[in-house]
């Protein structure tokens, strides 16, 4: 009887401990959620404020009334639609080039056995170690030689010639597709390219999606590339245009800057919510399977 009582007491303290642990977990989650979300909310609310509501030591939490015309003003001042068009065009070209060339190369590295293949693949992996600054100057010299400086070409043409990291990711995926599946097609006399195009590509849709998404994000985000190669203000991408706008209006039109920032973030967040699964899978994959 006594033993049973002490057991029950034990169970009792265990539950209190558990409840306390629960409360602590949710408290921590809420605390960090506020910390992580607040800057985004602050960007949005600031973008809707008047100048008077910004330059005050007593922060205004809710702008009243919200200055929606800030968005109109900034899109006009920033040449926004032009920059957006430039950026989207670069994204489309780069994503197309990367997905095409990398899946071709990944196929060659995973589903055909040829002498020298594995050596070339090791070299490919090795190039991932080279920091971009090493290549920055000679690439500039090369593109200058081609007469491409000041055009979009240095920013998208290389994408059609594949990149080590994406080849690696796709190769990993292609190797998981059973060999028997394509062997049958070979017996039927299918050409290698048809196997690639009509069997492997449809099967690898999720992996291609991941590569395309990350590529899109990288181009949308890229600042250094456009900074080096684009000099004509009409050719700017959103990232470069926003930075140029900031260096002209920084410290004065904070509301407009936040509006421009919000507009640049919005498409990415919308894209994320539509492709969340691929996104999360892709990121988990990059960290785990190397």
């Amino acid at each position, binding site marked *: 009887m006594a033993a049973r009582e002490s057991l029950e007491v034990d169970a009792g303290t265990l539950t209190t401990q558990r409840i306390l642990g629960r409360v602590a977990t949710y408290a921590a989650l809420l605390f960090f959620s506020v910390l992580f979300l607040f*800057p985004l909310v602050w960007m949005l609310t600031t973008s809707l404020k008047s100048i008077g509501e910004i330059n005050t030591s007593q922060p205004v939490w809710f702008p009243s009334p919200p200055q929606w015309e800030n968005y109109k003003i900034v899109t006009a001042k920033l040449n926004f639609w032009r920059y957006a068009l430039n950026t989207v065009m670069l994204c489309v070209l780069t994503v197309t080039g990367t997905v095409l060339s990398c899946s071709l190369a990944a*196929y060659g590295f995973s589903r055909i056995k*040829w002498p020298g293949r594995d050596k070339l693949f090791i070299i*490919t992996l090795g190039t991932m170690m080279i920091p971009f600054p090493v*290549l920055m*100057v*000679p690439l500039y010299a*090369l593109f200058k030689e081609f007469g491409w400086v000041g055009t979009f070409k240095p920013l998208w043409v290389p994408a059609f010639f594949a990149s080590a990291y994406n080849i690696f990711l796709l190769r990993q995926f292609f190797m998981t597709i059973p060999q028997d599946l394509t062997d049958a097609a070979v017996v039927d006399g299918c050409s290698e390219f048809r196997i690639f195009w009509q069997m492997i590509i449809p099967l690898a849709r999720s992996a291609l999606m991941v590569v395309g998404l990350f590529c899109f994000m990288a181009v949308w985000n890229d600042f250094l590339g456009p900074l080096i190669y684009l000099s004509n203000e009409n050719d700017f991408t959103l990232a470069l245009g926003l930075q140029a706008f900031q260096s002209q209006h920084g410290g004065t039109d904070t509301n407009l800057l936040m509006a421009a920032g919000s507009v640049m*973030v919005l498409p990415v967040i919308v894209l994320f919510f539509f492709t969340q699964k691929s996104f999360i899978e892709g990121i988990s994959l990059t960290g785990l399977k190397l």
Partner: protein
Amino acid sequence: MTREQKRNLVKGLLFTAPWILGLSIFTMIPALMSLYYSFCDYSVLNPPVFIGAKNFTSLSTDAVFWKSLNNTLIYAVVALPLGTVMGIALALLLNQQIIARPLFRTIFFLPSLVPLVALAILWQWIFNGEFGVLNHALSWFGIDGPNWLTDTTWAKPALVITGLWGVGNSVVIYLAGLQDVPRDFYEAARVDGANWWQQTRHITIPMISPVIYFNVIMGTIGVLQIFAVPYVMTGGGPARATLFYTMYLFDQAFRYLNMGYACAMAWVLFVIVAGLTLFAHRMSKGHVYYGGA
């Protein structure tokens, strides 16, 4: 070589042809050129002139070079461990039995979607000394916040905080690692009376050590090349307190057109990156456990 092998060789080369071209034109040849330029006086406007190791000897006496290297290493030494600990801690939180896990994961991940230029402009506003919301929040606790981005002491910590906001990417990776740890390990440990901390220390951390190792390596390579955020937020100031390695390299190459000098800097960076990776690899032996993967 049999006919079959020959056919395969041709096919293999055809499929990888774009990459073989890309590898040569956009990586291998530029890498070799860069190595050559690092021994040249080169402005891109005139052909390179070989000057031996002069760029490297100039580097060794260039105070701004040392300042930028120092800034970068300090930033790395503070930002990397903080980011790693915070990434693992948040992932551990998410790995508890909680409701709405995907919602919290999304909340932590969202900031890492923000394009760097927009991110820099946003945090510039948050850190504003006069009207910034951070100093306002600090004033609730009676703290008189500094002029973060124009104060030589506080500019670097401000950039570290900005960087930590983007930790969500590694949280997602760590969480995926945590969810791969077999449940029975914890059950066995609980039967043996191990508490939460002991389970974390002796099961969780060893089991996800390959993920930590990967993240630390990639983080090191990334953090040594930090560019866009400080370029936009501080432009390297005040008094070069946030002038990082790649920023100085960029200035040398594209502002002063000292392309040879910039290449020399780039190769020094390469040696540092390679050295640190090798060091991490050595350190990982006996500490990284690959049994679970």
